[in-house]
């Protein structure tokens, strides 16, 4: 699988305190990669390093197979970014603001209408940017970031200010972009979002990756060796996977209706909390 970006042993400090410590990971072409961690873990710093807003003290970063220090300015034609410090022109209308970025990117104006409808902002296109709510502004900035169908999209907490129905719509849009060939690097502290969207995830804690893999792999890896059965009369009962427990389960089933039986899989949040507790 081709690497879209690589970070190897990257470190950076601020005011003498290490923000990232020998951080290493890879993102493959056409995948949605989730970068999870609590606030202050270094997610935004990582995106800033990957987009040349910061310079690492040590380590290696590659973007599209090239050392980041040598990538040409044209590389940014293939990149889209949404971060907490993305800006818009407040005195412009929503439509004029997006139109300006479409002109910068040489994108057909018909795409603006298409995207505004997708994020539910078409009716508000003539409103001034400064009059939009936080959620509406976030959606507008997402449109700005994906206008040119980037090859690589960096999203820093893209649905942080959004309600569940808009979040779902944004997720659909991102999945569609991914199917069309966009690699997505997504940071979030919403574990369920990563679980729904991402092909692979990495947990960031105290400046380095403590675990990574696909959500399914991680759930299997950290699954408890137990099952839970739900009976009509006796309710929920946990069993281990031993032969004695299975006999006990069979015995109970004779006298009571078994409704469901499944293994106990942890959520991504459970895994993260367990790993960060161990790391502490």
């Amino acid at each position: 699988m081709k690497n879209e970006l690589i970070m190897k042993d990257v470190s950076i400090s601020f005011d003498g305190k290490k923000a990232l410590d020998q951080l290493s990971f890879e993102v493959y072409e056409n995948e949605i990669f989730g970068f999870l961690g609590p606030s202050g873990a270094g997610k935004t710093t990582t995106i800033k390093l990957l987009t040349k807003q910061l310079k690492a003290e040590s380590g290696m970063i590659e973007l599209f197979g090239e050392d980041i220090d040598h990538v040409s300015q044209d590389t940014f034609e293939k990149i889209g970014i949404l971060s907490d410090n993305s800006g818009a022109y407040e005195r412009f209308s929503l439509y004029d603001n997006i139109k300006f970025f479409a002109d910068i990117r040489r994108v057909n104006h018909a795409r603006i209408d298409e995207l505004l409808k997708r994020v539910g902002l078409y009716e508000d296109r003539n409103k001034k940017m400064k009059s939009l709510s936080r959620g509406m502004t976030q959606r507008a900035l997402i449109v700005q970031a994906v206008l040119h169908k980037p090859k690589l999209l960096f999203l820093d907490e893209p649905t942080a200010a959004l309600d569940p129905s808009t979040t779902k719509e944004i997720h659909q849009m991102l999945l569609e972009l991914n199917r069309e060939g966009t690699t997505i690097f997504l940071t979030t502290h919403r574990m369920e979002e990563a679980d729904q969207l991402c092909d692979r995830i990495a947990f960031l804690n105290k400046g380095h990756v403590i675990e990574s893999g696909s959500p399914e792999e991680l759930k299997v890896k950290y699954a408890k060796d137990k099952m839970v059965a739900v009976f009509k009369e006796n309710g929920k009962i946990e069993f281990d996977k031993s032969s004695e427990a299975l006999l006990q389960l069979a015995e109970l089933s004779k006298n009571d209706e078994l409704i469901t039986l499944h293994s106990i899989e942890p959520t991504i949040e459970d895994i993260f909390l367990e790993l960060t507790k161990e790391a502490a």
Partner: protein
Amino acid sequence: MKIAGYKIKALFIKDIKNLFRSPNVAFMLLLPIGFAFLYTHIMEMPDEAGMYVFNLCTILNIGVVPISIVAMSIAEEKEKNTLRTLMLSNVSAVEFMTAKLVLGIVMFLGVNVLVYFICGVDIASFPWIMLVIFITSLSALMFGAVIGLISKDQMATGYYSTPVMLLFMAPIFGMMSESISKITQFIPTQSMMWLQGIESASDLLTGKGLFSIAVIAAWMIISLIVFKFVYKKNSLDN
């Protein structure tokens, strides 16, 4: 380094639209025009005072447009994170600054042309006077860009631009005092006024002519060096 003309055009149009939607900027642009009108049409001034009023308003215009408005325009983009968004949208620093400087030049010259006609200066001198003013304004534009880069927001541009404005406006006081003019002869706006008044091309080759050209050129070089240094220092977050 690639420079895309279509990006500069889009940036320039955006800047014009954005600035004219700001009441502060509209007021600032009207200041030199308002003063020119006030002095020439409302107050009782002798006919030959046209050039004097024109110089006063031109110097005011240099303080307002290239220094203050360009600085505010850049600082606003930093404050609202649109500069960062532009850089990450593959707009190069050269494209961004070119659009800002072109904006400054167009607005500055536009105001100055209006002031020229309001003051009733001899139309035959128009090409030469506007050329001298344009060249002099370039260093002011660079300093305005520097102020925009070092200011963290629009309000901060006031702290930094005021001393620079006063410096460029000092020749106004030089007009009233011989001893002050000995100091202000090293300021480009003083040289600008002298060059505007020459009567033939041979005057440029006189001691005073060459000195005035050297002062304007030196300020341009210094402003470019300062700009390059400040830009490099402020281009990254760390």
